[in-house]
């Protein structure tokens, strides 16, 4: 005990402390303990190594090059796709003003016109109405319905 006591009580405590000094482990026990410690330390190092490497300068540079290459490829593909895109794409909706200019119809009674957009573009379709049941029949082609009506007038 490293204390320096003056009283009798403290001397007794000091004597007890020194007399009861713990016995250290044997050399074999120390060796086993140190082997466990070094094993754990060696296990920790490989686990930490990838973290260290991930932030190494070479990894950082190669990562940036890869990202830049991917970005360039995406931009190039977008540019080429824009260049080769047809002027009138079938999926693109036709402006309503353009429809109005091309088709001007007077619809006969019993014909219900509808504008439909499908894979062929924007089309005009018409539904004929059954006079008895008032059910819609069709869809009919808009031109067919109009010619049919005109034939009826001629008759």
């Amino acid at each position, binding site marked *: 005990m490293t204390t320096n006591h003056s009283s009798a009580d403290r001397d007794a*405590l000091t004597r*007890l402390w020194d007399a009861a000094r713990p016995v250290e482990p044997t050399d074999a026990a120390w060796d086993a303990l140190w082997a466990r410690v070094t094993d*754990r330390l060696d296990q920790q190092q490989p686990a930490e190594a990838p973290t260290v490497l991930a932030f190494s300068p070479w990894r950082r540079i190669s990562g940036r090059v890869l990202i830049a290459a991917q970005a360039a490829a995406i931009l190039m593909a977008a540019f080429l796709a824009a260049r080769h895109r047809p002027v009138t794409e079938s999926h693109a909706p036709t402006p309503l003003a353009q429809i109005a200019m091309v088709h001007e119809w007077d619809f006969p009674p019993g014909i219900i016109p509808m504008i439909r957009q499908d894979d062929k573009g924007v089309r005009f379709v018409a539904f004929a109405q059954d006079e008895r049941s008032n059910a819609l029949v069709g869809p009919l082609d808009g031109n067919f319905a109009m010619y049919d009506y005109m034939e009826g007038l001629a008759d």
Partner: protein
Amino acid sequence: MPEATSTVGAAEPDDETLVGLARSGDRPARDELFLRHRGIAYRVAYRLLGNPHDAEDAVQDGLIKAFAGLEHFDGRSGFRTWLVRIVSNTAIDLGRKRRRRNVFAMGARSNGQGPARGRPAAGGTFEQGRPEPVTTSDPAHRLHREDLRHTLDLALARLSPKLRITFVLFAEAGLSYKEIAESQDVPIGTVMSRLHDARQKLQSCPEIQALEEDEAG
């Protein structure tokens, strides 16, 4: 496996030099640091925990923490002080955990379950177990030392962890007030006060008083 003598060389490099070498992966330097300070680390852990198995566990965990975090050693205090601080804090933590574990074990035994005997509980509630490895050849001397150690273990167990670690760092590890204050993150006055309280409580322990009476008689 480290030899019993220094593997670094006859020049006996100081701890700071060895720490620098160990940081750069020098295994003999690490071994030498272990050989130099394992004894004090074990004695501190033993005084705090009161049994050899728990003390070895605390030293092992403390050594792993210390050498794994060697880059955090700033050199303000010596390596020995730094290692003792880590081992003592590890021992206190271990003592708390095993005290809880032993409380459960004692509960199980009272229900007729669990082992009949176990290690002395660490961190304040010692069972009736005794320190185990004693290598003295004289049986009478060995028994006497066992009795003394057991008496001191019981007396230390009566101290709170704060008082116990303060007293052990002072009396066993030989740390200064300032070093203890830094390791416990308290003012120096608190260290002095705790040391005074610890001495008072130890001296008033019935086990120590009985021992003194035996000596006087």
